């Protein structure tokens, strides 16, 4: 039985979006895609049941985290956080999301700030990729993270897109996430219950879904200062040279000891499973090795083995599995060069 949706109020009257009689296909059913960085899985929606796009939407720009938390709580799931807007506005336009309220968090100074201290970096969830990409300290410490966020979309997209949005949009193919996972980044979350920190790899729980509780939102990211002789890198495969959603994305971060043996490693993998992955087996292939061809081959095999991809308009299963291994090898080589150079 098709879902007719909730009754909507309109100009004082009550009407129900109704279905026409006839075969199932009689509804204006269609695959509705949110375009930028979004799930590979289509969600069919009864378009006729949705309210006119954005008609009930209001906008607020709080100036503190508490104010934002209060606004989200007051709307009980019907409010949506707005950071860069490069995913949200596309979803609004296609009717994919239908919030009563949009809460613009860019007016909260803490969410725009990029700070460094002895421990490392704190990057506000609403700092734009362009701003982060210009931060000399972050670039020097985590070049893989920076090259990942500078691949999101285009120059124009990077002028607005944020790490908070890229993560919480929860596309399996988000470019910044595998690099953040490889870098061991922590996600700082605020909500009605206070604040907490969660490793980035535990945030996305499925295409378009996060583990955040109702009323919570991401306020920032913590990146530790990298150990000595550490390097990270992010590579992705897209059909063109820019603009595409990643068909495969791999982030590798590793640390070498004085003799060139890998002592720590983390591998993040994107676009090949319902969520971005932390691939422990791939890291194990590197740890204890000199990151030589044999270790790289094992790394590639472990990375390919971890893939659980789908066939879609961007790539096939076979292609993704194969290329994941290729990119892991290439990214690890770059990370090793960067580590050796420190």
């Amino acid at each position, binding site marked *: 039985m098709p879902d007719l949706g909730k009754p909507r109020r309109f100009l004082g009257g009550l009407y129900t979006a109704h279905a026409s009689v006839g075969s199932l296909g009689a509804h204006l*059913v269609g695959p509705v895609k949110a375009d930028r960085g979004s799930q590979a899985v*289509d969600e069919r929606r009864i378009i006729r049941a949705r309210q006119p796009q954005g008609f009930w939407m209001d906008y607020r720009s709080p100036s503190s985290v508490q104010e934002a938390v209060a606004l989200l709580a007051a709307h009980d799931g019907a409010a949506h956080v707005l950071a860069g807007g490069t995913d949200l506005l596309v979803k609004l336009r296609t009717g994919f999301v239908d919030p009563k309220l949009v809460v613009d968090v860019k007016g909260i100074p803490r969410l725009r700030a990029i700070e460094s201290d002895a421990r490392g970096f704190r990057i506000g969830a609403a700092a734009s990729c362009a701003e982060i990409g210009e931060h000399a300290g972050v670039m020097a410490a985590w070049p893989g993270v920076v090259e990942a966020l500078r691949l999101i979309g285009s120059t124009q997209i990077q002028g607005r897109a944020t790490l908070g949005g890229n993560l919480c949009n929860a596309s399996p193919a988000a470019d910044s996430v595998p690099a953040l996972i490889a870098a061991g980044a922590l996600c700082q979350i605020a909500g009605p219950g206070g604040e907490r920190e969660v490793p980035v790899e535990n945030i996305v729980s499925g295409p378009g879904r996060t583990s955040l509780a109702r009323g919570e939102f991401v306020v920032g990211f913590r990146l530790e200062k990298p150990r000595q002789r550490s390097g990270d890198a992010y590579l992705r495969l897209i059909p*063109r040279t820019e603009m*595409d959603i990643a068909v495969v994305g791999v982030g590798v971060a590793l640390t070498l000891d004085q003799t060139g043996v890998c002592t720590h490693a983390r591998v993040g993998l994107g676009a090949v499973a319902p969520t971005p992955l932390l691939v422990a087996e791939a890291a194990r292939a590197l740890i204890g090795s000199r990151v030589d061809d044999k270790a790289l081959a094992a790394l590639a095999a472990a990375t390919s083995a971890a893939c659980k991809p789908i066939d879609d*308009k961007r790539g096939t299963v076979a*292609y993704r599995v194969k290329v994941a291994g*290729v990119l892991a090898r290439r990214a690890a080589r770059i990370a090793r060069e960067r580590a050796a150079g420190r």
Partner: protein
Amino acid sequence: MNDVTMKGLGERQFNVVGTRPLRPDGVDKVTGRAKFGADLHVPNMLIGKVLRSPHAHARILSIDTSKAQALPGVKAVITSADLCDLPSEFIPAGEMMVNFRDMTRNVMAREKALYEGHAVAAVAAVSEAVAREALELIDVQYQVLPHVLDVAQAMEPNAPLLHDNMYTIGVEPRPAQPSNVAKRVEFALGDTAAGFAQADVVIEREFITKPVHQGYIEPHACLASVSEDGQADLWCTTQGQFIVRGFCAKLLGMEVAKLRVTASEIGGGFGGKTVVYLEPLALALSRKACQPVKMVMSRAEVFRASGPTSGARVWVKIGATSKGRITAAEAVLKYQAGAFQGSPVQPGCMCAFAPYDLDNVRVVGFDVVVNRPKVAAYRAPGGPISEFAVESVIDELAKRLSLDPIEFRLKNAAKEGTKAAYGPKFGPIGLVQTLEAARSHPHYRAPLEANQGRGVASGFWFNIGGETCATLNLGEDGSVTLVAGTPDIGGSRASLAMMAAEELGIALDKVRPVIGDTSALGFNFLTGGSRVTFSSGMAVIEAARDMIRRLCERAAKVWEVPVEDVVWEYGHACPANGAGGERKPLSLADIARTAGKTGGPIVGNAAINAQGAGPSLATHVVDVEVDPETGKVTVLRYTAIQDAGKAVHPSYVEGQMQGGAVQGIGWALNEEYIYDASGRLENPGFLDYRIPVCSDVPMIDTVIVEVPNPRHPYGVRGVGETPIVPPMAAIANAVARATGIRFTQLPMSPPRVLEAIDAKRAALAKA
């Protein structure tokens, strides 16, 4: 007056033609002042939106618009009942034919929805939000039917039938059963069986291409205003304001003169804006609402519901002697037309082997309907598909015969006097010159590294002439207004002004070109078929000569001498040799100042049916690198060489060559329509319909060859379409040399390339 031949074309010295001045409409375009289709706002205007079928194939049982009509803010709702049902009648639209019975149904569905996105109803309301709400209130009852998307499947006996009155034309005897095959065509010369018998090598291949879209950046947009007495104004982005007028008048049951159509600046067309989609709907809504109605397609609507080009299956067989002479060539082309008949399979058949001098040729084509949007023209419609296949087999043959690909083509190249398979004997054409220029170009000798390959392909397109009018109006101060009737899609008004200035012998900045609306000129066929510089150019030159005759008459009157004693030189009326003594030459300004006294306003006119458009031939060379681990193809270097006849403004000729080449690169590597199992388009946006971006391509080097077309006063040939013909084969040939693998399916996207590379590696390992 049609044939205007010029003696000694090669020797004429041009003053303006061949230079690179700034285009007269340029400043408006770089400041944002120029107005495109969606840029017009008028008071009291309504917003129109279209309800579209979500089904690829469905019978429309009923449409109930009552709730939509009752919604406050809605001023008009229309369905097919508000447009005329027209009988079947074919007329040309650019280089393709359109059928009015099909057109009325494509613009708004009647009995059936035939593709996802097919327009079913439309509303006009006070705001976009209310219009969208109104669409949701329209109740359409569909009976979903099985659909077919693939041309081969559509030709099978039990395929779902789109039209139960479609009996294949061109087949004897006429089929007893309807099918999805609208037409069969055949072109033949000589005896191909005998020709193949003489061949030492025969290669036969089958190719598959996917539907691609012209990809213009500006979506369709228009603003219609119908008065209470039935007179109407339409502003729209179009390649042909007169064509739009004609189509809309028929669809709305209006007289042509009552509808004035103004072409806005156009943000790309490439053939896709030679037909109507929103325009009749906006007029019908405005007629009902008695208010202006603006309609703009979203990007998703453009992909779903305008006119991509065909996908196809092409079989090619070519035989040659060991010395490299082609003895026979055959092809079978099966093109998808989309939901209504009219794919470009016929021009595809005609062009397929046109670059070659062949005694034995046979090409058969099928026009097949499928549940996809009705195809429209796309830059050399039909040609890129068939010539991709042919140029690929030519390359394989060359390799098999151990001949350089350019040498092989030179041995078989069509020249002046060659009889084409589709009928005519060629006049002077420049294929040999482009091949020789390619052979001696430094690109052809540059070294290649591992995983790199170089490909060559040639290409042919006919180009057209057609009905064209132009007027030159002389201002009281001697400045000139040029009114042309063909929308400027690539800088042509600059070339037209240059030809007027050249012929009149005045400075370019004394001529102001404007593109007139349909009330300003006699009928003009649309901008397409690479015809504007040729046809409008010819009309402008003739209008200039008309004006010169009148100017000389006025000078003769002033000087009281016979008109034969007056000549026109360097923008002045001068006494002819010896006659009249020391009379000072009269400029345009001099003559204009006294025009009222010498006979009245001075105007130059032309209304012609331009004939003699010469084909433009090209040869492209491309280097690629293929990543053997990811299948990604990178274009490293590209050189396009083409015969322009006479390049009026060389920068814009180069621009056509570069733009067409890059469209071809996209078609070769990444562009395709992707449908799901239910016949819905999965990639109706620029994110997943992947046209080349700036970083995907290198500089496109160009060489312009000039073999003048003797049928044009300045030797001009159209150049706009030929550039898209060679790239796909050039790239496939380059990839073949880089990988040893012949790709016969487009696009050559990374997953397909990697699959083939891995398969080849596995096969070698087994051997």
